[in-house]
């Protein structure tokens, strides 16, 4: 799960990291009070999950009180890369003597955590990585999952952290690394991490992605998602154990297993259709999951036909059938549904469906072709 900048900073602040004071606002009217509290100059930053906010006019420095509300209104009126700006982070501006890039990421290839540091902080870090790779320093955690002060000390010298700030920088980098590990993050990115004119280190922008699988033990982070979800439908789906991504097509897909779900979408495309979504009901199904999946697909007005493709393993076909029959009773299913069932408890499921006069295909291709044919 991706946190908003303001949520990331709240988390960083709670963990004692150096951030400028600030608060989030949902309307321009709330902003002056916040500015009174933290003092001018301030930065107003659009809270949307896309890059390039600055270039789109979503980040502005305001130096006088009279400009606060008009600027806030301007930003809240923006739509950046298709996303309307609904919230604004108001934060005290800080002067910047030098900018660094700091990140920690779960490194899939190394099966470890990698800290990434660069003296060339700012928006063009990916460019730097390509064109000047030696300006990017990487420290990968060892067999004990640790990164050591002496490793960061070398990096600090190499990336040009002023010598008198080395100890402060090492302490901060290791504290951020510990937070990454302790909070089950998969990405923690500070860009830029700045040195102010007074010689303090401040985290100016922050991006956090969490490990969804660990949220059962990270209630404090889960709260962020509830409070301000990136995509409400996807979050709701997740609560029921469904993995859902909305797309632009018109064939609604309900599949068990991510691989089969992707193969189903590939096949829908192959036969000329366009999937309306990715939806994996996951393993170990229960009837409620299936009902919620139907509800979710039906709520998408673009959907013209619904394709249910189940190959039971740990998911039992009878659970799926029971869920579908439940949905049949409670929901208004106003679009054609094509079902394919194979695998665990397939026979029981077929019997249940036959009683409702519903037939189900045995082979995936048959059901996909029928669903795609609906125009």
């Amino acid at each position, binding site marked *: 799960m991706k946190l908003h900048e303001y949520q990331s900073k709240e988390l960083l602040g709670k963990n004692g990291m150096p951030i400028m004071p600030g608060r989030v606002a949902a309307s321009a009217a709330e902003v002056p009070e916040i500015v009174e509290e933290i003092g001018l100059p301030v930065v107003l930053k659009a809270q949307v999950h896309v890059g390039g906010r600055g270039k789109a006019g979503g980040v502005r420095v305001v130096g006088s009180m009279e400009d606060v509300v008009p600027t806030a209104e301007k930003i809240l009126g923006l739509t950046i890369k298709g996303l309307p700006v609904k919230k604004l982070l108001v934060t005290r501006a800080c002067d910047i003597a030098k900018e660094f890039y700091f990140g920690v990421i779960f490194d899939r290839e190394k099966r470890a955590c990698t800290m990434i540091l660069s003296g060339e902080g700012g928006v063009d870090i990916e460019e730097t990585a390509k064109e000047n790779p030696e300006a990017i320093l990487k420290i990968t955690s060892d067999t004990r999952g640790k990164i050591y002060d002496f490793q960061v000390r070398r990096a600090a010298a190499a990336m040009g952290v002023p010598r008198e700030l080395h100890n402060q920088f090492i302490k901060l980098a290791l504290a951020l690394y510990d937070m990454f590990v302790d909070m089950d993050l998969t990405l923690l990115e500070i860009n830029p991490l700045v040195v102010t004119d007074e010689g303090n280190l401040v985290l100016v922008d922050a991006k956090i992605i969490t490990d969804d699988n660990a949220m*059962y033990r990270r209630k404090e982070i889960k709260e962020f998602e509830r409070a301000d979800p990136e995509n409400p439908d996807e979050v709701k789906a997740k609560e029921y154990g469904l993995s859902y991504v909305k797309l632009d097509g018109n064939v609604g897909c309900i599949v068990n297993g991510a*691989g089969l779900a*992707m193969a189903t979408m590939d096949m829908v495309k192959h036969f000329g259709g366009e999937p309306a979504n990715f939806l994996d009901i996951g393993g170990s199904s229960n009837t409620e999951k299936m009902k919620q999946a139907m509800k979710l697909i039906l709520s998408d007005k673009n959907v013209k036909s619904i394709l249910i493709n189940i190959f039971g393993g740990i998911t039992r076909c009878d659970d799926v059938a029971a869920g579908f029959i439940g949905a049949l009773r409670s929901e208004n299913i106003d679009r054609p549904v094509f079902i394919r069932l194979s695998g665990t408890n397939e026979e029981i499921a077929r019997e249940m469906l036959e009683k409702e006069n519903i037939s189900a295909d045995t082979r995936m291709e048959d059901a996909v072709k029928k669903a795609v044919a609906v125009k």
Partner: protein
Amino acid sequence: MGILIDENTKVLIQGITGRDGSFHLARMIEYGTNVVGGVTPGKGGQAIDGVPVFDTVEDCVKETGANTSIIFVAAPFAPGAIRESLFNDVPLVICITEGIPVKDMIEINQRLREGGSRLVGPNCPGLVTVGKSKVGIMPGHIFEPGPVGIISRSGTLTYEVASELSHAGAGQTTVIGIGGDPIIGTTFIDVLEMFENDPDTKVVVMVGEIGGTDEERAAEYIKTMSKPVVAFISGRTAPKGKRMGHAGAIISGGVGTAESKIEALEAAGAPVAGLVSELVDKVKERID
């Protein structure tokens, strides 16, 4: 032959008294798997479908001689269950559980490097050596004996592939789902090597998907193999995944897409099918 499991495999089920554990206990027995015991802490002394339940893996191994463990324990407790099997040197551990946090798997991966056990999964369907032993959640009736070895990162897509191959008369030696998580105990290369050395396997099917670079690495190994490999990659038409900030781009540098996988595999001499039916045709060609 086949790989990893056969009629001598003695299975213990961790989480045997749970909904999934007890259900698949029955399915495995039905298939002919030699399930010798189960573990559920606090429920030792019971029996379920005639199989004795123990409090700890150590007790179970000592009493039954189990040499393979399959884990049906809920995600918060699954890392502990894996650790318990590794601690007791169970040679083969299969973890069905999905949803284990990456942090736990980093640590378990380290333990695997230090010890002598093999882990398959997590978040995998397990494996079957056709007609001999099934240690997993795959529906048993879809497999037929034959010369094809299947390795897959997916669960249900594996069933789809196996089922279609069976229908087409292309039976299997061993079918193994290695799991789709970022960190898994057994990778494509490990299994490709086993199939390369298995006299009964004539053709290998590798089912991959977008994300990670395991398929690209496997392609390097395939170049050295004597047996034909046919691949399938799902997610060709999937929308691009969510970006992992700049850091993700710095670390991965653009690999892991369907295109990069297909390119690597075809360059290694492994044709990549886009539909299961196409895969079946390519496999049949190579058997004959």
